């Protein structure tokens, strides 16, 4: 194992897959000459040239559509959105075209494409630049949705996404790019399958389902709770569509408690979907209602003191776990 940053792990995944398959190319704003707005694609232009690392004008619907068309006829595009906030102007391309073509053509056409970029709050970038978009994309059949929390998952899932024959929404995090973590050594290929949740921490008192930036908040909260004798089992679904809750149900049968921790707004989305499935499939095992710790239900304000209050905090996670544990 080596230690890599999340950003480097993503870069390696793209580099290896582009090396392996000439049909794979990267397209987006500033991905080439600028080396990526967040430096994820640094060095790729030098290695693969302008044919395969393509800087675009600001026209997300246009280049997302071009990616979809290119995928329909045999290429394997990686489309970078500088941030997922900018996918909203391309929303129709993703939901009406990418997610529909395989079925509308009765299987005659496939759309092997990856849409990727940073998702969620990025520290004080305010209301129009802080969207956590999983609720929109995870609800759409025909798409796969990945949201890796660690460098290792980032690399392994992105490789799987690039090799997939289906459209994949790949949610990264500006505040995760600098994060360091273990990644398999060079030459050791790891493809992480979709729909395989990962148990990140074991514990018998409360099950926590979490992913993305809040995953790290929950992990820290779990340590503090452990100091007070409450052991949390933390499960990261890694892909939000498909959603693998089997390990969660199994865990809840043991802990009889569940808390879901996520950045996206509280109304609906993967957070509510997980609660829906857990209360149905573990109904007889729950000793308390499933609780959620989510981003607050409002547009993101600019001021740091307020942004910190909007995003899930260790404190809110600890309170929720204590509530479902009926502990003070």
């Amino acid at each position, binding site marked *: 194992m080596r230690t890599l940053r999340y950003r480097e792990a993503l870069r390696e995944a793209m580099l290896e897959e582009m090396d392996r398959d000439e049909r794979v*190319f990267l397209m987006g704003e500033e991905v080439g000459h600028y080396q990526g707005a967040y430096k994820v694609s640094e060095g790729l232009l030098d290695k693969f040239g302008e*044919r395969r690392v393509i800087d*675009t*004008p600001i*026209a997300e*619907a*246009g*280049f*997302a*559509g*071009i*990616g*979809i*068309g*290119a*995928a*329909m*006829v*045999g*290429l394997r595009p990686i489309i970078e959105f500088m941030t997922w906030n900018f996918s909203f*102007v391309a929303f*129709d*391309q993703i939901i*009406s*075209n990418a997610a529909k*073509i*395989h*079925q*509308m*053509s*009765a*299987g*005659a*056409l*496939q*759309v*092997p494409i990856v849409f990727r970029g940073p998702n969620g709050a990025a520290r004080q970038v305010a209301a129009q630049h802080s969207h956590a978009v999983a609720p929109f994309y995870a609800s759409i*059949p*025909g798409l*796969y949705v990945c949201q890796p929390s660690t460098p290792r998952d980032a690399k392994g899932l992105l490789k799987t996404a690039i*090799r*997939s*024959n*289906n459209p994949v929404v790949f949610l990264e995090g500006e505040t995760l790019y600098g994060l360091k973590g273990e990644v398999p050594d060079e030459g050791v290929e790891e493809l992480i399958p979709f729909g395989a949740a990962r148990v990140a921490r074991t514990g018998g008192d409360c099950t926590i389902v979490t992913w993305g930036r809040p995953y790290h908040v929950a992990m820290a909260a779990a340590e503090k709770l452990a100091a007070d004798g409450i052991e949390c089992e933390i499960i990261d679904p890694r892909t939000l569509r498909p959603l693998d809750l089997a390990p969660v149900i199994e865990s809840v049968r043991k802990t009889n408690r569940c808390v879901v921790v996520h950045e996206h707004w509280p109304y609906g989305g993967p957070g509510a979907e997980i609660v829906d499935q857990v209360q149905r499939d573990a109904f007889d095992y729950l000793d308390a209602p499933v609780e959620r710790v989510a981003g607050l239900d409002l547009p993101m304000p600019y001021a740091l003191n307020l942004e910190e209050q909007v995003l899930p905090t260790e404190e809110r996670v600890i309170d929720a776990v204590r509530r479902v544990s009926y502990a003070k």
Partner: protein
Amino acid sequence: MGTPQPDTDDLLKHYRSMKVIRRFEEEAARNYAKGHIGGFLHLYIGQEAIAVGAVDALQDQDYVFQTYRDHGIALARGMSPNAAMAELFGKDTGCSRGMGGSMHFFDVENNFLGGWAIVGGHLAVAAGAAFKSHYNQEDRVTMCFFGEGSTNIGGFHEAMSLAGLWKLPIVFVCENNQYAMGTPLERTSALKDLSIKAKGYAMVGDRFEGHDVTVVRERLREAVERARSGGGPTFVEILTYRFRGHSMSDPAKYRTRTELEQKKQLDPIQVTHEQLLALGVEEKAIDDIDLEVDELIDAAVKFAEESEPAREETMFGTVYAEEEGDA
């Protein structure tokens, strides 16, 4: 430039092709009224010379994209009337196995890549197919059709901007049939000559009447050759007219009977019929074609009626494509 002279054999071929489309849609309309066809049904009647002329300007390996008004181009491109009619009937033998219906015809074998129902949504997708030809250095042009009402939407602009910037091998064909649903062009565009829009993308523009199939073929051929030879995209506005309503549910009250009658003077099939006679073709030869086409379409209806309904397996089995190593 002077009007190109039609060649008799070509013209006979074109006449038949237009006739197939016309008769197919007349029967489709009849069966829609009978309740055998559901959803939206947008007829191409009156615009046939464009699809037929365009196909003759293209090569087999070229890609074609169209809006929901897609029966004409699909048939001209070689889709069997059986598969087309069965699709309208929602049958398993349809070109999209009953998944798509009238608006979503697909025929990958003939490089007809759909049948798209979101205005402006397929232009960038078509540019993507052209991008692939460019990426792989293939000798393959993409032709993308859309209506004049689609030129105000963002999807049009972004596809034009990117295709122009990257000199993609694509021809954008705007079928200006004067109306977007019930709205005439003068109420949707400050610009009257839409081909001027090409200037905004440093792109070549062209504009002409679309009732003479030979003219359509010759003018589009120029654009196709430009794309094929690396000259980049062309924006072509073709003036035409639809004789029916926007879709079956539209009584078309927004236009006068006189306007319609006057436009019908330039029915592309009539025009071709007269050209054939002028070239010395016997009325009898034309009647034979009409008869053969009638039988072809009647058989298509029969085929559609007798086919099995769309299958549950198709619906569940095409949400996601198989992955390597799947089942």
